[in-house]
């Protein structure tokens, strides 16, 4: 796959894809307009047909996701396979992080597909030679008992002989780093690399090579390039919006398409810029605290909210955040940030001054 990154990147040096400076100014202006309730959403190209309909069926099939997994699993193998097999190494604990918008079961699936032992419950088993902690969720409970559990884990990780790969999201890693210094045990912290606009374009082309995607704003074909420059900034903006997370990019892309229903242009799909939702008005403070807690915990049971937030949340806030697409309930009944919203939530929290870590 052309333009795809060839290796994992170092955690503090994660190269977030950037959009153009002019687009950043435009985005800041649009956000301000939205905050001032001046945004009426009338900014469409005259080229856009009037008979567009929203697409409800997914435009990406399993093939795109399988190829993406294959690529990422390959990067993980390249980085860690030798280390896992090495007989004698001073590096007993390593970490591999992903953005919070990556699938929560990504590392679990990789470990299972490679036959590595996993520690789903966060409890170390000293009999294992190598184990993967596929998620930092069990170690990220913002309560004194959660801290106690984390410290026990650190103690055991220091004394056990098990070679350990810790996997999780960047914000969880930052939280752990600040509260207990688990990072002191870790030799190397790598990250799933970002996909830039060109790499995302080749990801889209896996299933839609001959298809034409056009921007509602400019009317230009978004995957067309001339002298290496995109005809439209859509892909550049998309990569910057999701910080290069391919899974989030695919999801945002799915949410942005409207297909032409007229027969003449049946192979044209129009894309609008994704309209990131706003927090419920008058409850933004409570909403931010709740989203911050969920982001740190990974999955947070609704009945545990009171234990980790000393705030009386207004009735209906959870439902409102679910309705607006910020939160969802996973199979185990835990609240989670909707994956593709994670970068947006991160941005909202950072602007409000919340501690959200380095990436």
């Amino acid at each position, binding site marked *: 796959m052309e333009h795809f990154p060839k290796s994992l990147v170092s955690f503090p040096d994660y190269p977030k894809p950037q959009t153009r400076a002019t687009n950043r100014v435009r985005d800041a202006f649009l956000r*301000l307009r939205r*905050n*001032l309730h001046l945004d009426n959403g009338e900014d469409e190209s005259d080229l856009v047909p009037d008979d567009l309909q929203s697409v409800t069926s997914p435009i990406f099939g399993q093939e795109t996701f399988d190829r993406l997994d294959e690529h990422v699993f390959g990067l993980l193998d390249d980085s860690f396979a030798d280390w896992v097999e090495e007989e004698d190494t001073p590096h007993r604990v390593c970490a591999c992080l992903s953005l919070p918008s990556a699938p929560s079961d990504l590392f679990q699936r990789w470990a299972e597909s490679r036959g590595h032992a996993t520690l789903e419950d966060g409890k170390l088993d000293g009999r294992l030679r190598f184990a993967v902690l596929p998620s930092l969720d069990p170690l990220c409970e*913002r*309560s*004194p008992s*959660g*801290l106690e559990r984390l410290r026990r884990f650190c103690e055991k990780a220091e004394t056990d002989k098990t070679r350990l790969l810790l996997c999780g999201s960047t914000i969880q890693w*930052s*939280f752990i780093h*600040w*509260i207990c210094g688990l990072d002191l045990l870790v030799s190397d912290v790598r990250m799933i690399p970002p996909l830039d606009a060109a790499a995302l374009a080749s990801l889209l082309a896996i299933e839609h090579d001959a298809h034409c995607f056009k921007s509602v704003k400019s009317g230009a074909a978004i995957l067309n390039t001339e002298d290496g420059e995109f005809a439209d900034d859509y892909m550049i903006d998309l990569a910057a919006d999701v910080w290069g997370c391919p899974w989030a990019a695919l999801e945002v892309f799915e949410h942005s398409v409207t297909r032409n229903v007229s027969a003449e242009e049946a192979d044209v799909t129009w894309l609008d810029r994704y309209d990131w939702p706003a927090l419920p008005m008058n409850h933004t403070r409570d909403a931010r*605290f709740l989203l*911050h*807690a969920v982001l740190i915990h990974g999955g947070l049971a609704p009945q545990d909210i009171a234990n*980790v*937030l*000393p*705030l009386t949340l207004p009735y209906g806030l959870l439902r409102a955040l679910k309705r607006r697409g910020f939160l969802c309930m996973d199979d185990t009944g835990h609240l989670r940030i909707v994956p593709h919203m994670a970068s947006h939530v991160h941005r909202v929290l*950072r*602007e*409000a*001054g*919340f*501690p959200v870590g380095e990436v």
Partner: protein
Amino acid sequence: MEDRADQIRSLFEDFGTWNILQAVTIAVLFILLYKLVKIALPRLAELLPTNLRIMVLNAVPLARIVLMLAALLLIIPLLFDVTVENLVLILGTIGVALGFALKDFATSAFAGLVAVYEKPYRSGDWVRIGDDYGEVIEIGLRAVELRTADDDVVTIPHSRIWSENIINSNNGENTLMCVAEFLIDPGRRADGISDLLKDVALTSPFLDWERPIVVVMRNESCGTRVLLRAYPFEIRDQFAFISDLTARGRDALVGAGIRIVRMPELAGE
């Protein structure tokens, strides 16, 4: 003597009704513009990222000075025939007037200018002046307004910066040190108390992760006073943060079998 009279006559040469009307219109327009800035900028500040909030709030007193100077530059030539001699005369007259009639006002106004330059307090800062502690909500021409934790607005003349210490808790930053205090029974070993309270701070949702958490203990006649010091990431959450630290800290201490000294016991003693 005649020269002096001529000077004064020439000074007021343009002092006609039309000019006065123009001057009044300019003054009213600039006052309205300042009122607009005073309303709009704090609202805008609330919509911007936190790191820009205090910067935008501080544009209000600066805007006042700029607008006031601009208004004066437009009004003075309308009313007075400005020459070097006249300027000296005007300044002399103003000096005498301020010196006698408006001494206190002038002192405060000048201190206000110094305050804008030296920044002992800025809009959005939490300051203590004398016994008053609160958030600076407005820096006016003569006085600064503080909103206290009890929601009282205290007006304090700028001239107090000449004679008093101004304690600024955050000094333009968006955080400040918060302290939760506990008075505990001294008849117990102090092992673990510090870690217990640090964990309370570490698990607070208001905590700024990047700032230090410090526990200070001090022996007093009635017990050991324990101070838990930490920083919230948002200055406006300081009281919620202190309440959270106090409530959970007290529960944690009691849960660990540490006796909190109660006031009735002290009164009984």
